[in-house]
């Protein structure tokens, strides 16, 4: 049942022009960034060639691109997740799911999975750009894969936060703005951490962005994997609790 809901959610996204336009705009902007980065690499190539331990094409082109992808998703993910539950509540279609023999966790996980699949599709389209470099050069495949994995994990937490925020309100726009606020807060939470030593460790751990760094350097650390999975699980459980509680309060 989970997969029925997930595939419906995934295909529903393609029924609205919103998802298509987001995909198109994102692709254009990132392609522009990618090309200008490639251009700069071409200009510096001669000088880099003479240097000892100079950054390769992966560091010069791919890493900055993937870094930007993380931030750009922070801006667009709420627009994708906002409709998951608020639309169902506004159109009063949620009762179809609730009166079906499906558990609340199946409903929430199904919606989450559908949105996450859509994010992965977007990520695959973006990954096509650095992959195209293989036509002319060699890349640091490990670094590229670690970066993509880091982004995929980041997107699980974006999807979970967005789905939870969508259960809170009937207005999709309110859901989008509140999930954007929540994600941005988690993104910048460690920026103020320098003054208090004991706090900065905790704040740095809470930051969504911080954990992406090691993936971008090509490091696969279980701490970071666990962090993203914990954030996702937390918000998904909150979403399930929220729907259960709605049945009680009406």
């Amino acid at each position, binding site marked *: *049942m989970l997969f*029925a*809901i997930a595939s*419906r959610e995934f295909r*529903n996204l393609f*029924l*609205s022009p919103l998802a298509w336009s987001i995909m198109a705009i994102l692709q254009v902007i990132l392609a522009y960034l990618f090309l200008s980065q490639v251009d700069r690499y071409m200009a510096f190539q001669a000088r880099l060639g003479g240097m000892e331990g100079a950054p390769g094409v992966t560091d010069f082109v791919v890493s900055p691109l993937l870094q930007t992808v993380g931030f750009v998703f922070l801006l667009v993910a709420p627009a994708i997740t906002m409709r998951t539950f608020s639309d169902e509540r506004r*159109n*009063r*279609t*949620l*009762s*179809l*799911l*609730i*009166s*079906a*023999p*499906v*558990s609340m966790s199946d409903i929430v996980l199904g919606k989450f999975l559908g949105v996450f699949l859509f994010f992965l599709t977007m990520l695959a389209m973006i990954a096509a750009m650095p992959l195209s470099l293989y036509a002319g050069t060699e890349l640091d495949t490990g670094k590229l894969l670690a970066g993509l994995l880091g982004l995929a994990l980041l997107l699980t937490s974006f999807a979970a936060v967005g789905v939870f925020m969508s259960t809170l309100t009937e207005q999709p726009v309110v859901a989008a703005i509140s999930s954007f606020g929540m994600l941005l807060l988690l993104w910048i939470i460690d920026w103020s951490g320098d003054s208090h030593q004991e706090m900065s460790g905790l704040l740095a751990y809470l930051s969504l962005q911080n954990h992406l760094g090691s993936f971008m350097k090509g490091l696969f650390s279980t701490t970071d994997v666990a962090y993203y999975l914990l954030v996702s699980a937390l918000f998904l459980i909150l979403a399930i609790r929220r729907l259960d509680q709605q*049945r*009680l309060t*009406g």
Partner: protein
Amino acid sequence: MDTKILIAVDELCRYYGHHLAVDAISFELAQGEVLGFLGPNGAGKSTTMQMISGNLAPSGGRIAINGIDLLDRPRLAKAEIGYLPEQPPVYPDLTVREYLAYCARLHRVGKTHRGGAISRALRRCGLHGVETRLIGNLSKGYQQRVGIAQAILHNPAVVILDEPTVGLDPNQIRDIRELIRELGQSHGIILSTHILPEVQATCTRVQIIHRGRLVFAESMQALQQRLTGKALVLETQSAVDITKLQQIAGVSAVEPLASRRARLLFDADNPAAAVAACVAAHDWGLVELALDRQSLEQVFVELTCNEDGAAQAAAA
């Protein structure tokens, strides 16, 4: 016939904050019954139906669907229910067929039966010809029918329909009533409506709910007998002598209604023949002599308005 109890509701309560919306309602629904749920707006009909369909958690009491407790084993119990809420839960972006296919998957209709179940629901609800159109482009009546198709798709033991004929034209209403009667033979159906003739046309049992309490629950047969009251209405061309009427055997009382109209109450057999003979003998000129039928509407108004007045008087 061995009748199976499909729904057993026991002392069901529901609070919204401090407001008691449903107050200790108990009833049962057997296979082959169509139960009409009546009540003024805000009486608790929809709340009760939402609780039976699992959309609202009750504040107290038990609900068993086909012997399965809804609160203990919700998934098993919900598999036996088809529910049409007040507003049909349809996705405007899907075609009718896509939508029903999704509902079939949600209700765990096996892959091999899915096609058959969908075409049966389409046929029963008269949706052939619109199955490839987007639901959002259909008229309200067709959307309502898609909602009904969704509720009967998986062949549930119990079908709960919250105001199923709202927004339909008279022909469609007749079709839907026919469908409900047909479904009622093999399923148990709960139906809520504001349209009283609809209840008389389709239901085998009637319940009136008022201020969260069940104030009337009778089978249609018992209701018909009750409605066919023990009274005659007599109208004549010239004034009648009431004492003469009272002497007729079988007439227990006479109430004058207007100058030439009277209401005759009786206990046992209908004394209409004797009354007619009496009128003819005195040459009063018979205009009308009829059984005084109480309509369901009168029962409804009596049960739901008098109490209002009483409550207001108590509150004042």
